[in-house]
């Protein structure tokens, strides 16, 4: 999944990309890391996601901050579905607590409780039903609590 640089003659777009969009790179990185549990793969996801963003900048221009985050995570999730190799989780990894949660639970838990998306936004990002999100959120919180005792 490569990404290539392209120059732009629009300094406004560049400034917007750097200050408003790239500043949310941590969000995408944490999202990717939550699923992949691998730093290098999470970095590839970030680059792939922002490579797509460069082609969609106009769609971001008038969005509020939370909507920007929503859109970035939606793009990241679409990219994640194309990742063919998710089999190299690092151990113990940067966030040890995540290792003990199932993938769906940690994904929903992190998206809601760490990345700040509402359950409804999470449904739309991950294309899940409302009851699925609630169930994974409940189970994720319960598993987290048990793992930290």
């Amino acid at each position, binding site marked *: 999944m490569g*990404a*290539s*640089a*392209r*120059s*732009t003659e629009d*300094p406004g*777009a*560049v400034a917007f*990309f*750097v200050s408003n969009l*790239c500043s949310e*790179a*941590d969000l995408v*990185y*944490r999202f990717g*890391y939550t699923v992949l549990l691998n730093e290098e793969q*999470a*970095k590839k996801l*970030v*680059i792939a996601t*922002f*490579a797509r963003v*460069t082609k969609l900048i106009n769609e971001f221009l008038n969005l509020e901050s939370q909507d920007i985050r929503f859109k970035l995570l939606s793009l990241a999730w679409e990219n994640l579905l194309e990742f063919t190799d998710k089999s190299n989780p690092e151990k113990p990894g*940067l*966030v*040890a*607590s995540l290792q003990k949660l199932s993938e769906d639970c940690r994904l929903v838990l*992190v998206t*809601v*409780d*760490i990345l700040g998306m509402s359950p409804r936004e999470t449904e739309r990002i991950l294309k899940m039903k*409302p*009851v699925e*999100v*609630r*169930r994974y*959120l*409940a*189970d994720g*919180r*319960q598993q*987290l*609590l048990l793992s*930290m*005792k």
Partner: protein
Amino acid sequence: MSNNSATNLSDDQFFFAYLSEYQDGSLSESDKARFDSVMGTNGNEQRLVDYGLARGQLQLEFQKVFVDDELTHQLHVLLEDDAARANHEASDIEEFARVSVAARLIRGGLIALAVIGLGIGGYYWLGPKSKPKFSALDSLVYESAVMIEDPEGRLDFPTNELDELRDYFARYPNLGFSAKPIKSPESDWQVEGAAVIDYEVQKIAVAQFGSLAQKDKLFIYQFEGRLEDFPYSQPGNYQGLLYQTYASDYFNVLVWELEDNVIGMIVGSRKAEELAQAAFKAVGL
């Protein structure tokens, strides 16, 4: 009317799935009634508190997951490679040089008169009214959780003397505002120390208090800002101290205007009324 998602969850799942909405006060009547009924079971009252701590710990762990400078650079060059950016900057500098010479020759005296008139009005209407460059509610709730996790490690100036704490803030260089002297919040609070949190765009003075009896902490923050920077919340009034209240999973937060462009914020796990009383006694009006 209960929502369908809640209907399909067991009581245990319902508790964990909706605990944030319960704390925010945003549950429907029927869901709230169900939540109230499950709160008294399975030790859920304690689980509510424990989950707040667990979440805080997970947030701390995620601080280790961030995009480094190299990756940031790789993202920037997706849109503008280094050569193009250098060309942009060089042409901006050249353009600026041309314009500045012409401006000096043609507009010098006229600009001086215009600036005097525009500066006064322009500063009032367009000048910086506040520095909402960081989210105080998010950042300082997080800082409070971190300081509970590491009560001694995060304090720049551990002390049990209020005089020393007041002196520390009064002497702190380039704080950017005058910290109001802090008195005792009374009740069972003992001063534990002070810190100045230095974000790039903001410095925040924080005094930490602890209670041996109840084993909890209290944080009193002071920083530049205005109440308009905060989301709307139902206002409260404690003996003339007008404040706004917010809640996170584990903390209650009160925010009020200490003086012009200086905000006071108190963070703790006790009820809002107790926090208001502590704020009033510690910092006053």
